[in-house]
């Protein structure tokens, strides 16, 4: 299974765009990437879930863990998600109250859709393991 993790910078925000399926197999890579960003000093992280096809509680755990880590550094984690099937798991678990969820990266970083040009600084981690 492919998990794509792309990092870009939007002003003081690091944007981590996640693609593919987040489950017990792929979650460790996702967790590591988040931890890496925090240790690089990125304390305002937007996680863009628009490219995610599947996410279960393992993925929620990574996000909760990331949020805790960031808050302990005085930072924060913002989610971008409009897919109802993904939002549903946040709602059921009460996590909509814990995360700030935005409809777009622009909205998350407080810019209008015309303030664009995100500079891609990250890599694309396409793993060929799994399905």
């Amino acid at each position, binding site marked *: *299974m492919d998990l794509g993790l792309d990092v870009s910078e939007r002003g003081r925000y690091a944007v981590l765009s996640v693609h593919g*399926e987040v*489950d*017990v*197999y792929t979650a460790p890579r996702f967790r590591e990437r988040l931890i890496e960003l925090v240790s690089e000093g990125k304390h305002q992280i937007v996680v863009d879930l628009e490219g995610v096809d*599947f996410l*279960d*509680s*393992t993925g*929620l*755990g990574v996000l*909760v*863990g990331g*949020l*805790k880590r960031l808050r302990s550094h005085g930072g924060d984690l913002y989610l971008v998600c409009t897919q*109802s*099937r993904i939002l*549903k*798991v946040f709602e*059921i*678990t*009460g*996590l909509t*109250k*814990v995360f700030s969820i935005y409809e777009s990266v622009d909205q998350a970083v407080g810019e209008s859709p015309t303030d664009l040009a995100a500079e891609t600084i990250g890599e694309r981690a396409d793993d060929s*393991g*799994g*399905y």
Partner: protein
Amino acid sequence: MVDEEVALEIPARAEFVALARLVVSALAATDSQLADERVDDLKIAVSEACTNAIEAHDLVATEERVRVRCRAAERGLEVSVEDRGPGFDPSGLPDHPPVTDPDRLKFERGLGIPLIRALVDEVEITSSGDGTAVRLVMLHAADDVAD
């Protein structure tokens, strides 16, 4: 639709959970009485149950495979996830604090079974020292179900 059972046995490894989802969703997709959204919900529940089963096998270091059985029945789609792990007491799981409680953040884990219960119409967990079976039923034309 066929009232017969498909069984899948997977090694108790994280990389095979996607295969269990694939098989269940391929079967569910042929069930015209299950909306796509309900198939998505079932996939999440199957993923949670398989993840727990694999973790359970890890605990007892067994080489046995996790078994996923799937049957399209009259009343709905039935899936069972069976492991040979140490078993547990499902009624003994801690309650989650209310959604507004700041303690919510403690819960990096423990969301799997609550999700299963919320997403699937019928959930039956049978557990003993020999292992656990989680039986999930997604009913045909069921109304949305609350937790």
